[in-house]
């Protein structure tokens, strides 16, 4: 993986999912993004040696909707049925911090200046984190595409990267939304139906059960992790508040000088602990959700690929059963079989690579998380020791 990005965060993120990409022929990153109102404009920067592009280096502005469009077109392309299609990035959501900001503005009069400043700072940090996360998710999506030997050659993808005008995709209208919803329904119903069909290939049978199981588990774990992180964040917030309160207590306390000192030390410490924890945990959360998301979505692609396979199989069986139009059915069956074989083959390949990718990603994340935990714990230990010393010498 070669990247020009200096941002360590991005580096990490990239490494999460793009381990398989180790050629420099197509490198994509999002060095910049602009947030105006509820639209986020990403600058997609591409560097390539491929001849299919007109220039070796270019960048275009893209919106979230365009990413979705790209994803949808890929999903709809029949050829890619046997491939794991990278999950579309989630919609940028700045509502949370924005709402908080609003509340903060309302509550401005009810709190002290320091508190307000602190809160504002906190919120800004949060906002920034969300923003960064959003950019990363979009970047990862593109990188996944670019790293895939088939997707990278996709015409739409190349257009997306190269065409420097507005792609003029519009948001899905209500009808389409409903259509999508309906399709999902059909799909899940289909899945249920298919599940009764006997799997011919043991590999897929195994994979299917495993993925189903795994998906539910990882979904669960993700939810729990999120919950844990949230409560951890609450604790961190409490620390922040406490440190604020301690500060004001100390400021007001001219008599208990000793206490003031101790209190100040404590405050500083808590502050650090809080930010440490926040950093660590959002990071952790981010990793987990990303991983999980990928796995989950991959599973769905897989399941769908499987369903398609099953469908074709079924159609074939039906045709045979009926006994008429056998030539056509045979033709059809042959086609389906071919398709199925092709799908199976590519699916197998994809699945194996997915597995490898997942293991690698997990390993990486776990190590990084552990190291972070250790680092933060060590930091707080030294901090705590320092403050205890100061207090003791008091």
């Amino acid at each position, binding site marked *: 993986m070669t990247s020009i990005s200096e941002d360590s965060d991005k580096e990490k993120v990239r490494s999460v999912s793009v381990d398989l990409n180790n050629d420099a022929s197509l490198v994509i990153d999002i060095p910049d993004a602009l947030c105006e109102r509820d639209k986020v404009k990403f600058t997609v920067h591409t560097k390539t040696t491929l001849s299919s592009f007109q220039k070796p280096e270019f960048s275009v502005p893209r919106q979230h909707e365009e990413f979705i469009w790209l994803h949808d077109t890929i999903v709809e392309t029949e050829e890619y049925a046997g491939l794991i299609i990278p999950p579309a990035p989630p919609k940028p959501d700045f509502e949370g911090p924005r709402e908080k900001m609003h509340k903060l503005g309302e509550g401005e009069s009810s709190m002290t200046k320091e508190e307000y400043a602190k809160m504002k700072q906190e919120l800004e940090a949060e906002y920034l984190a969300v923003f960064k996360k959003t950019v990363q998710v979009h970047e990862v999506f593109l990188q996944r595409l670019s790293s895939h030997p088939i997707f990278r050659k996709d015409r739409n993808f190349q257009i997306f990267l190269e065409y420097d005008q507005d792609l003029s995709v519009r948001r899905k209208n209500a009808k389409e939304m409903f259509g999508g919803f309906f399709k999902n329904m059909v799909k899940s119903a289909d899945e249920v139906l298919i599940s009764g069909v006997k799997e011919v290939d043991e590999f897929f049978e195994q994979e299917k059960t495993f993925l189903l199981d795994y998906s539910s588990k990882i979904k669960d774990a993700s939810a729990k992790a999120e919950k844990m992180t949230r409560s951890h964040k609450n604790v961190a917030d*409490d620390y922040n508040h406490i440190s604020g309160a*301690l500060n004001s207590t100390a400021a007001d306390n001219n008599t208990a000088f000793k206490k003031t000192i101790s209190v100040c030390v404590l405050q500083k410490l808590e502050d650090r*602990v809080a930010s440490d924890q926040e950093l660590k945990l959002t990071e952790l959360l981010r990793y987990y959700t990303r991983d999980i998301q990928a796995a989950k979505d991959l599973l769905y692609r897989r399941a769908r690929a499987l369903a398609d396979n099953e469908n074709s199989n079924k159609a074939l069986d039906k045709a045979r059963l009926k006994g008429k139009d056998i030539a056509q059915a045979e033709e059809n069956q042959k086609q389906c079989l071919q398709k199925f074989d092709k799908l199976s083959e590519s699916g197998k390949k994809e699945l194996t690579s997915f597995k490898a990718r997942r293991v690698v990603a997990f390993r990486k994340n776990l190590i990084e998380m552990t190291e972070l935990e250790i680092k933060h714990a060590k930091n707080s230990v030294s901090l705590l020791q320092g403050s205890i010393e100061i207090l003791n010498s008091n």
Partner: protein
Amino acid sequence: MAASSERSPPPFPDSEEPELLEDSDEEADAFTGTSISEMDSPSPDSTRPPKDIFNEPPEDIFSDPLSNINSEPQKKVDAKIPSPSSDEAVDLFSDPLDDDSEVMSSPEVQNPMPDLLNEPVEAPKSDSSSKSSSVKKAASAEMFGDDDDEEDLFKEPPKVVTKKPQPSGPPVDVFTEVKSDVKVKPQVKDDPTDLFAEEALTAPAPKPSSGSSSSRTNGVHSEEQDLFSEATVELSLDSPCNDRKNKEAVKPSVSAPAAPVASSSSKAPSKSLEELEEEESEDKFDLNISITNPEKVGDGMNAYMAYKVSTQTSLTMFRSKTFTVRRRFSDFLGLFEKLSEKHSQNGYLIPPPPEKSILGMTKVKVGKEDPSSAEFVERRRAALERYLQRVVSHPSLLQDPDVREFLEKEELPRAVSTQALSGAGFLKMLNKATDAVSKMTIKMNEQDVWFDEKIQDVENEEQHLRKLHVMVESLVNHRKELSGNTAVFAKSVAMLGSSEDNTALSRALSQLAEVEDRIEQLHQEQASNDFFTFSELLADYIRLLGAVRGCFDQRMKAWQRWQDAENMLQKKREAEAKLLWANKPDKLQQAKDEITEWEAKVTQYEREFERISATVRKEVIRFDKEKARDFNRQVIKYLESLLHSQQQLIKYWDAFLPEAKAIV
């Protein structure tokens, strides 16, 4: 008694340092004046003639430092010289004055005092510096000349000399007071031993060391007793000001406590700043109270929790060194009621007990083994322990017979009044009264800037602490939540690990689950640490600040009384003027009587106000000091607990790291 003479200088409390010197003189005088006579009457040791020698001369020492002292040592020396038979001590003894200087150091006899004083005293008794300092003080203050040298050389005997007069006085004064009784005992022991020591002259040398080493640990030997008696003297000295005030304050109104207090103050001639520190250490060492074994007694709604109150002390005011009693919660409240009834109007800061919690207690009564009720009991136990410790660390409250009874007496009469009046209810009432009073006394123009600021400070601080407390509570809750969520997450990760088909990853995940499990434990522990070391500390101080405000209110009330009396006097005077003008001689006499009566009242109230102001001030200063210390200690403890959990965290993650790396 001495009370009146001491009461006259009201500026005392303000200037502690200068006070100590004059004070000691003055008090000594006062004390000799009162106690000499009394001393003779009981003469507990009349059987021993040498005793008189001792008793008298010291008395003289105090009353007439210079002249008598000089003669006194002579006497002693004389007595000693014949007996010498061994050791350095003997040498020291045998050549009382000249040798002293030689032995001890080069400084000449003219100015040996300070140096010698410092050197010898400090050297032999490294750990009993407080004592030596007080000795120094007493000695130097009274200008003991050569006697001091001698004192230092002998370490013990001279101290006995200086101290003895003090102890000897009080027992006579008050038999009711344990402390004085105590003093009689050591004295009795001392005297013979000292005499022996001086006569045998073998004892002095070894004694000092043992005495000094065990001075804090409740000695049994005679020499230790010396130290010990000294220590107790100091203890009582610790609060001379308070005592004096107490005495002054109590005397007019309350008769019972007046006597012991008076005695303690009378035997507490010298007071120094160091004594504040001494007092602190003294408290720590001499009286350890712990509350353990909460036990449910009875069944149903009549059930209650009984706590084992164990006391460990070297204070001789108690009958034994260790003793335990069983007390129930309402007993603690009862103690508070009694104390506040007696002392709060004098401006004392009575540590408030934890609040009564009907909900929590009902849970305990009804629920069997509920973790929350166990937590409740533990919380209350800890709170009661802190409460009692605060009570006994208050020098004047410790003297209260009720406190002693509470700690010592097997059975206490059931405290009935507290049934209705829980701590919270009482505080509420107090607060209501506060509001009423403050409204009433808005017009009180505070002449004392210190009080003005302090009141403001206390109010601010209370607010801050309240806020802080709320936040810490939420921290505790959130951490508990976090712990729960971590546990759930751990389970979920374990499940994930079980369905993972990559063996190494599966192993790592189950390891991770284990780590998370442990972290959950850690969070839980930390949450209880948050609560017990931090949140409870804040809660305590919120209560205490309420009590501080109560003190201020008492002061205001006193002021109000004074002002009312003043107004009354004014009215009476006007009435008199009217009568004069109207020329009604028959009523004039009555009016005049009334005026004198009210004049007396005004002076009395004014004095009371001054006294209470001084007391409150002292109490608040004490409180501030204690608070700073408490916070410092608790915060350190808290930080240490945080440190511990972080270290554990490192350990856990460190152990996990190779697992994560082992994933292939």
